[in-house]
């Protein structure tokens, strides 16, 4: 058998291009469905694991998919806004821990996630470098954000204006990077996390400026009465929060009416969860409560319907490739007719010739197996990132 393998190897080496094409065809034929299966499994795992670990999400009535994609995967589609009061209402029920989310703004292309410190505990996120959020105007960035933007604790990051043409809009906020999160292979790697109040500052709802009731600079005052001072557009608003100007930051009105996009509700137990869901079933409430698992399951069913079509296409293509390979070998046998006759005349039996051809097929098959295995291994190693880059975001 070794002799046959040796002769087959010599033949393959001599016909490099033909052999490489065969190896490539077989490799692709096996690699494509395997890697697709792997990536889909991983994406299902990622989508579902995040959905399963997020018990309930409360948001404005409307598209549940938009709400979940924005709240859990920081999708670009911003759902209808609700007020912070929704989170306070959940506290009042004493049925769940509310984690408010305000995911609307961007910083250098990455979503700014306005939330509370409870979010980090809830997701089990830990700090890899620097420290957690402490002061207004600070941010903690995901591992991928730090990697792609080359940021480290102590650096700063500018929030992006929502609309480039809104000249009268709010100035971007220069946020200080307080810390970098440990890589989690989830959407959290791509988030710029800030305190909810900082996201309200980005929106301009909370701001800092010189005290207009005490200032001596009359050029910033438009009108002054006993009970009210009206400042003009010259009034400079701080675009960076420092220890010196922090005291001047203040809210406009009642914070319970400030906007958020959603609230993650973490029920104290299963019974509390059911009771909480019951409260939002009434048609009178302006909010909807959704179980992310149900929404993502629906989404995955659609994805897998598409996957079935893809599988069918791969089967047809695979069949065509197998036929092509058979054709290649048949044509190859015809081309090698004189060579086979020479071997036969030298005294070899038909079985020996069959063994020689079998050895060639075996070597091509094994080589394809190795290449395919190596490629699948690479896909497996980078599956989390590939899924995040190709499938989910």
């Amino acid at each position, binding site marked *: 058998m070794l002799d046959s393998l040796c002769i087959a190897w010599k033949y393959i080496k001599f016909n490099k291009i033909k052999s490489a094409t065969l190896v490539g065809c077989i490799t692709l034929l096996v690699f494509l469905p395997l890697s697709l299966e792997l990536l889909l499994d991983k994406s299902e795992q990622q989508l579902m694991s995040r959905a399963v670990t997020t018990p309930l999400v409360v948001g404005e009535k409307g598209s549940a998919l938009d709400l979940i994609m924005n709240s859990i995967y920081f999708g670009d589609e911003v759902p209808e806004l609700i007020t912070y009061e929704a989170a306070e209402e959940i506290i009042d029920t004493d049925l769940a821990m509310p984690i408010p989310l305000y995911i609307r703004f961007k910083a250098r292309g990455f979503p700014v996630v306005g939330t*509370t410190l409870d979010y980090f505990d809830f997701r089990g996120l830990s700090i890899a470098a620097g420290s957690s959020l*402490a002061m207004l105007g600070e941010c903690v960035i995901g591992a991928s954000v730090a990697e792609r933007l080359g940021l480290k604790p102590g650096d700063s990051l500018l929030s992006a204006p929502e609309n480039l043409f809104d000249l009268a809009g709010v100035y971007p906020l220069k946020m200080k990077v307080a810390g970098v999160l440990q890589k989690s292979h989830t959407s959290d790697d791509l988030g710029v996390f800030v305190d909810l109040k900082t996201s309200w500052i980005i929106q301009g709802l909370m701001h800092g400026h010189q005290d207009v*009731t005490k200032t001596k600079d009359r050029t910033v005052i438009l009108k002054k009465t006993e009970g009210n*001072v*009206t*400042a*003009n557009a010259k009034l400079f608003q701080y675009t960076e929060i420092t220890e010196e100007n*922090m005291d001047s930051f203040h809210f*406009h009105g009642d914070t319970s009416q400030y906007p958020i996009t959603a609230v993650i509700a973490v029920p104290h137990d299963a019974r509390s969860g059911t009771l909480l869901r019951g409260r939002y079933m009434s048609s009178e409430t302006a909010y909807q409560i959704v179980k992310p698992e149900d929404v993502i399951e629906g989404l995955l069913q659609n994805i897998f319907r598409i996957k079935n079509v893809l599988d069918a296409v791969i089967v047809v293509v695979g069949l065509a490739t197998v036929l092509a390979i058979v054709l290649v070998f048949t044509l190859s046998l015809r081309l090698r007719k004189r060579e086979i006759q020479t071997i036969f005349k030298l005294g070899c039996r038909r079985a020996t010739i069959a063994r020689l051809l079998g050895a060639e097929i075996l070597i091509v098959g094994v080589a394809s197996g190795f290449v395919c295995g190596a490629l699948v291994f690479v896909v497996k190693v980078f599956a989390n990132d590939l899924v995040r880059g190709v499938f989910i975001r």
Partner: protein
Amino acid sequence: MKFVFLKFILRIMMITLTMLPSFSIAGDKLTIYTVNYPLKYFAERIAGDYATVVFPAPADVDPAYWMPDRRAISEYQKADLILLNGAHYAKWTEKVTLPRFKMIDTSREFKDRYIKTKEAVTHNHGPGGKHAHENIAFTVWLDFDLAARQAQAIKIAVIRKRPDLESAFEHNYAALKKDLMTLDGETKEIVSKINGKPLIASHPVYDYLSQRYELNMRSVHWEPDERPGDAQWMELKNMLQGHHAQGMIWESQPLSETKEQLKSLGIISIIFDPCGAVPEQGDFLSVMRRNIENLRGAY
């Protein structure tokens, strides 16, 4: 044989060691951080030995205007519970990041009873409309009935954290409430003797005391350790024309010169320590009893 026995002993020791942390967690004390001394006192009374209650502000700083450093903020973040006074007290809590679910606003239940002071000047600019840096009186604990309600909020919070200790917490709260209600009764009794006589507060921190016990009180803005200026004396004299007060309530002992000058105007100085910071001597109850005695002595 010896070796086998040694291995067995080692294994037993390892199992015991791995089990140790779970035992210590079950018996762990709660860590409670507060933003002022009265809340620390209430929490200590209610949680007793089951909690370590920390109020990290230095004794010589008014906790209402204190700003903790990064290290102190980090300590607050790690606590099991953070007790807030509410009523915009300790504004620093609005400017730092604290875990929302650990924060207990002890006066949230009686928000409608907050007293708005008249000092606010509104300002507006841009499209946001008019807004005011509204001043809300924050020394809610000087109304002992409200103080008891703050204590109740603390009781609910600690029970939620340690439901297994509910009966102990309930028992401790009942004792604290009884003490606070005794203070309430004593204050009412003394105030009935004052019988609507005008009083002046040296600092606008007695709004809740004044409202609860129906004191005929008006405020100036004097500091006990500073000599009042001519304008401040003038303001007082103008006030006295329509408000014939014979007593001025101080947070702490005023300068002897000020005291004498007030005496010449027929005004005696009465110390009523709001006790926002940790007292040098005694505790919340003893300070409040002393305050009540000071009031009793003056009338």
